[in-house]
C-alpha cells in the first residue's frame, strides 16, 4: 500500500510535466492544426535560462520570469521567421519545420550555455513530506499545482473568452476568421508565444527535480505528444488527463515490473487506447455535413 502511494506520487509528478508539455501542444494545434515538435525545447529553454540568470546573481523568482518571457519571445520568433513565411504550405511541412527548429534551438543552447546538467534550489526546500507512509517532494506539489493552474487557465481561455474562441475559429476556418475581422497572423503569434511560455513554466517547475541540460527537450516532446494523443489532441482536459495517465503508467511499470519496460508499457497502452478510440479519450469526433 505504501509502495503504491509512492508510485502514485512519482507518477503524478512526472505526469504533471507531460501534461504541461501536452497543454503547450494544445494551443498551437488549436490555432493551426500544427503539432509543434519544438515544444520540448521551450521546456529546456525555461530551465536553462533560469539556471544561467540565477547563476549570474539574479534572484530566483525574477530569473524564472525572465526565462518565461525570453522563451515566449523565442516562440514568437519561431512563428514570425519560420511558420508565417511558409503560410499556405501543408500542415505536414509546417510540422517538419518545427522539427528543424527544435534541432536548431538545441544546437544553439549547446553553444550558448553548455553540455552540463544543471539545477537550482527547490522553491520550498528539499525536505520530503511524509504522507501516509510515502514521501513526496514539496517541489512535486509545485509541479502538480502548476499543471492544474495552467489547465484551468486554458480551459477558461478557450471556453469563456472571445480571444480564445477566435483561436479556435482560426484553426477551423482561416478565411472565415478573417471575414469576421480576426487578424489570423496575430492569433498565430499569440499561440506560439503562449505555448512557449507554458513550456518554459514547466521547465522552471521541474528543473529542481529532474535537472536540466540542453538535450532534455526531445524526450519531453515525445512524451508530451503521446500524452496529448492519449487524451485527445486539441482538448485541454485531454492534455491534462493524458499526461497524468502516462506518468502514472510509467511509474507503475517501473515500480511493479522494471524501469526497463516503463516506456514500452506506456506506449503499448497508448496504442491499445488509440486502436479502440482513435480520437483519444476526450477527442471530439468531428461531425460535418456538406
Amino acid at each position, binding site marked *: 500500500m505504501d509502495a503504491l502511494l509512492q508510485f502514485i506520487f512519482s507518477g503524478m509528478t512526472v505526469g504533471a510535466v507531460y501534461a504541461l508539455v501536452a497543454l503547450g501542444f494544445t494551443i498551437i494545434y488549436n490555432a493551426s492544426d500544427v503539432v509543434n515538435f519544438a515544444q520540448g525545447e521551450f521546456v529546456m529553454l525555461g530551465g536553462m535560462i533560469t539556471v544561467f540568470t540565477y547563476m549570474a546573481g539574479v534572484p530566483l523568482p525574477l530569473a524564472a520570469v525572465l526565462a518565461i518571457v525570453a522563451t515566449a519571445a523565442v516562440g514568437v520568433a519561431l512563428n514570425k521567421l519560420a511558420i508565417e513565411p511558409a503560410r499556405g504550405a501543408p500542415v505536414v511541412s509546417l510540422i517538419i519545420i518545427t522539427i528543424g527548429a527544435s534541432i536548431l534551438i538545441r544546437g544553439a543552447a549547446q553553444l550558448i550555455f553548455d553540455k552540463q546538467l544543471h539545477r537550482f534550489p527547490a522553491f520550498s526546500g528539499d525536505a520530503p513530506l511524509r504522507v501516509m507512509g510515502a514521501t513526496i517532494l514539496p517541489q512535486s506539489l509545485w509541479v502538480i499545482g502548476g499543471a492544474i493552474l495552467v489547465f484551468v487557465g486554458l480551459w477558461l481561455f478557450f471556453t469563456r473568452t472571445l480571444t480564445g474562441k477566435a483561436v479556435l475559429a482560426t484553426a477551423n476556418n482561416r478565411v*472565415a476568421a478573417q471575414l469576421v475581422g480576426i487578424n489570423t497572423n496575430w492569433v498565430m503569434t499569440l499561440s506560439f508565444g503562449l505555448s512557449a511560455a507554458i513550456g518554459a513554466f514547466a521547465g522552471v517547475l521541474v528543473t529542481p527535480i529532474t535537472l536540466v541540460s540542453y538535450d532534455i527537450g526531445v524526450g519531453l516532446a515525445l512524451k508530451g505528444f503521446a500524452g496529448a494523443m492519449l487524451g485527445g489532441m486539441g482538448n485541454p482536459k485531454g492534455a491534462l488527463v493524458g499526461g497524468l495517465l502516462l506518468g502514472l503508467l510509467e511509474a507503475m511499470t517501473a515500480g511493479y515490473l522494471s524501469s526497463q519496460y516503463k516506456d514500452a508499457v506506456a506506449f503499448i497502452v497508448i496504442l491499445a487506447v488509440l486502436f479502440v478510440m482513435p480520437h483519444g479519450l476526450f477527442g471530439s469526433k468531428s461531425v460535418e455535413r456538406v
Partner: protein
Amino acid sequence: MLTVEGLRSRYGRIEVLHGIDLQVNTGEIVTVVGANGAGKTTLLRCLSGTQPASDGRITFRGESITAVPAHRRLKRGLAQSPEGRQIFTNLSVEENLRLGAFLFKDERVDQDMAEAFAMFPILKEKRNLAAGGLSGGQQQMLAIARALMGRPSCLLLDEPSMGLAPLLVAQIFEVVTDLRGRGVTVLLVEQNAFGALKIADRGYVMETGRISMSGAAAELIADPRIREAYLGL
C-alpha cells in the same frame, strides 16, 4: 457606396478577372449573375480581401480599400457571407454568431443576436449545437446571420441559394429583400439568375472574367439574350 474600377486578379499565372468595372449605390440590391466559372466568386473574394487584386481599384465609402487586409475591411462596414457557407463547423451556432460580432463588445451584440434569432428561429432552437451538424439551408442562414452580426453597411453575398431546396431559396431571397429595408446595401452573386434579378434593383452579367451586360434588373430579365442564355426561357 462601393466602386470597382479596372479590377484584375489572377491565380498564379492565369488571369481570371480581366478588368471589372462595377458600382453599388447606397440602399441598392445589386446582383452579379453568370455561369459557373465566370469569375463571380473571385470578384467577391477580391472585394472582401481574401484574394489579392493584381490591378485596379476598389473604393468603399469614398476611400480606397484595395490594399486593406481582409480582417480590417469588416471594421469599415464591408461584410461577406462566403461561398460554401464557411461557418466554424466545430463551434456552436451561438459561438459562430458571437464571433461574427468579434469586433464588438457592447450590449448591442446581445440585441443583434436576438434579432438574428428572430430572423431565423431555427438557429435559436439549435443555438448550442455544433454548426457542422446543421443542414445546408440552416448553415446558409447561419452564414448570413453571422455576417450581419458584424453590423455591415454593405453585405457581399456569395451564392446563397446554392444547393438549397426551392422553398428555402425563396426564404433566403426574402431575407435579402428585407435587408434593404434595414438599410443594408447588398451585392448578391448568383447562378440562379432569375431569382436574383427578380429581387435586385440593378444587375451585371459576367462572362469569363468580364462584365458583358449591365442595367436595371427588370430590363435584364426582359432582354431576349439573357432569357435564352441564363434564364432558360
